[in-house]
């Protein structure tokens, strides 16, 4: 059961091959046997999961069940869950039990999905390795000496290790796509505003976007059908109509134009990873796609622009954590100033504090024009590069990351070298475009991902290309060998 895709689980449940309770118990058992070492969950609530599964089974028996009823899923610990701890990977929220559910959580509940637990992540989604989690890093199931990527590293590791058939993630600069690539799964960051941000702890509000992480593009389409849609409670939620994302999967790639930006294939790309991407592109070409060279001339502005915009917005968003209304409060504050400054010193980890400080600097009087305003101008240039490309091509393709997963500790002492990991993923967030990572090969036994970037609200085209690629390849079926003796 644990090896099934979401699509297979839906038919297995509807054909009564197994109950949701049996299925949920199988994943809970798998988590119990593997996650002691992989650390991909922060919270597992078995009682809650089994109760939800029984409810789904009863609904199926009564013939009133929604399509995904009884399908287990893991949620990143950034989504507020009423009555269940939502830590965001931080000491600041280690004691935080939200009084409400995020819109995304409500949508999965309304569709009958069973929540297995809440997954590990870099603190406040700031990181590319999961090493910034207050709960210690999740490990990469393909190589436990390596990081799973971040910030949605726990979600990626859980799906790769078959501890969940699918998971949710969030992506502010690559936090769905990079861990999906490192763990050999399929991940989709939708267009900015496509999925509600209500109840999703905010990092950088003009960049944050939630999306699905699963084994296949088809599963991502099924999950996006649940997640996408307007929410009056999120002021930047998109009002565009939501298509059935599975409808485009079987379209032919004949004549689909795929742009290859020269800047994504430069000196920074690991040679073996580059070879995997070239092979993947040949597969798409064999299925009828037309490959065209394109250019993103402002690519070199991407990293500095992102590392001004994101910290600036983070410094504003994270000002709410003040030790007064919820979350951590320092012991014995002598006065209000001490309460604020010591709560935030003790409650936040080093990387979060660095980004708040950088953001505060970039927004402070006398520096605003040189940093924040300048970055917002550069952001427009970066988006325009993509819009210009889309006059000639339907989607853009390249590597998700410069190479496969790196070793734990390899970059954690040097923030700037960690930031360079996101070189290919940041631009889609700055431009608000949807992006995907699809398993495209193994380098020294570790997965690498093909990145696809689409036009605004072009998720159907991305999912189509990804699905057609997966019909022709088996990289998404490969799985890590784990010491419980493989998979039942």
């Amino acid at each position, binding site marked *: 059961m644990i090896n099934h895709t979401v699509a297979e689980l839906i038919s297995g449940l509807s054909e009564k091959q197994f109950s949701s309770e049996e299925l949920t118990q199988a994943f809970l058992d798998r988590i119990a046997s593997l996650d002691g070492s992989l650390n991909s969950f922060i919270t597992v609530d078995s009682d809650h999961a089994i109760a939800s599964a029984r409810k789904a089974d009863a609904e199926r028996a009564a013939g009133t069940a929604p399509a995904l009823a009884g399908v287990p899923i893991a949620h990143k610990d950034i989504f507020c869950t009423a009555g269940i701890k939502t830590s965001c990977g931080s000491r600041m929220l280690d004691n935080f039990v939200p009084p409400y559910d995020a819109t995304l959580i409500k949508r999965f509940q309304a569709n009958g999905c069973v929540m297995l637990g809440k997954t590990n992540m870099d603190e406040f989604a700031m990181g590319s390795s999961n090493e910034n989690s207050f709960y210690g890093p999740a490990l990469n199931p393909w190589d436990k000496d390596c990081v799973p990527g971040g910030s949605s590293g726990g979600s990626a590791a859980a799906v790769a290790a078959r501890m969940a058939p699918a998971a949710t993630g969030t992506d502010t600069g690559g936090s769905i796509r990079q861990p999906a690539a490192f763990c050999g799964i399929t991940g989709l960051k939708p267009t*900015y505003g496509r999925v509600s941000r209500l109840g999703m702890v905010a990092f950088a509000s*003009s960049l944050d976007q939630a999306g699905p992480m699963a084994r296949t593009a088809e599963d991502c389409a099924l999950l996006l059908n649940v997640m996408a849609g307007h929410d009056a409670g999120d002021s930047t939620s998109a009002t565009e109509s939501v298509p059935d994302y599975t409808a485009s999967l079987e379209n032919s790639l004949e004549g689909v134009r795929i742009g290859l930006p020269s800047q994504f294939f430069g000196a920074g790309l690991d040679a073996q990873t580059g070879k995997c991407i070239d092979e993947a592109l040949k597969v798409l070409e064999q299925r009828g796609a037309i490959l065209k060279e394109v250019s993103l001339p402002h690519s070199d*502005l991407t990293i500095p622009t992102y590392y001004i915009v994101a910290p600036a917005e983070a410094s504003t968003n994270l000002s709410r954590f003040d030790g007064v209304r919820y979350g951590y409060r320092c012991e014995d504050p002598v006065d209000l100033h001490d309460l604020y400054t010591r709560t935030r*010193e003790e409650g936040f980890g080093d990387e979060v504090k660095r980004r708040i*400080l950088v953001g505060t600097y970039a927004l402070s009087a006398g520096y605003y024009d040189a940093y924040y305003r300048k970055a917002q101008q*550069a952001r427009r240039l970066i988006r325009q590069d993509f819009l210009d490309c889309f006059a000639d091509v339907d989607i853009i393709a390249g590597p998700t990351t410069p190479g496969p997963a790196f070793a734990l500790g390899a970059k954690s002492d040097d923030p700037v070298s960690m930031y360079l990991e996101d070189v290919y993923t940041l631009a889609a967030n700055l431009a608000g475009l949807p992006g995907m990572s699809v398993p495209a090969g193994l380098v020294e036994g570790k997965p690498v991902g093909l990145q696809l970037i689409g036009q605004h609200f072009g998720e159907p085209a991305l999912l189509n290309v990804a699905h057609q690629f997966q019909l022709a390849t088996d990289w998404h079926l490969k799985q890590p060998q784990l010491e419980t003796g493989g998979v039942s």
Partner: protein
Amino acid sequence: MSIEQSDIQSIAELARIRVSDDQLEEVTERIQSILSMVDQLQAADTANIEPMANPLDATARLRADEVTETNQREAFQAIAPAVENGLYLVPKVIE
């Protein structure tokens, strides 16, 4: 742009984050390395480019001025560090 330890102290004060004396040197060094990286942006030609705050150029939507939320004070205060008689408690501010 070069940043001094005293700059870090004043930013930290603005951000209400205490940075202890023994950490000041390391924090300054790391913030400096980040600022040196983002300073690459200064060379970009952005003359006459309108700043972009939202990738879809969306602006804040207005809604009807109607009460849509119910009072949940007790649920919210149940997770607060310190409350009394429906009020959030903080150290004394006015002597």
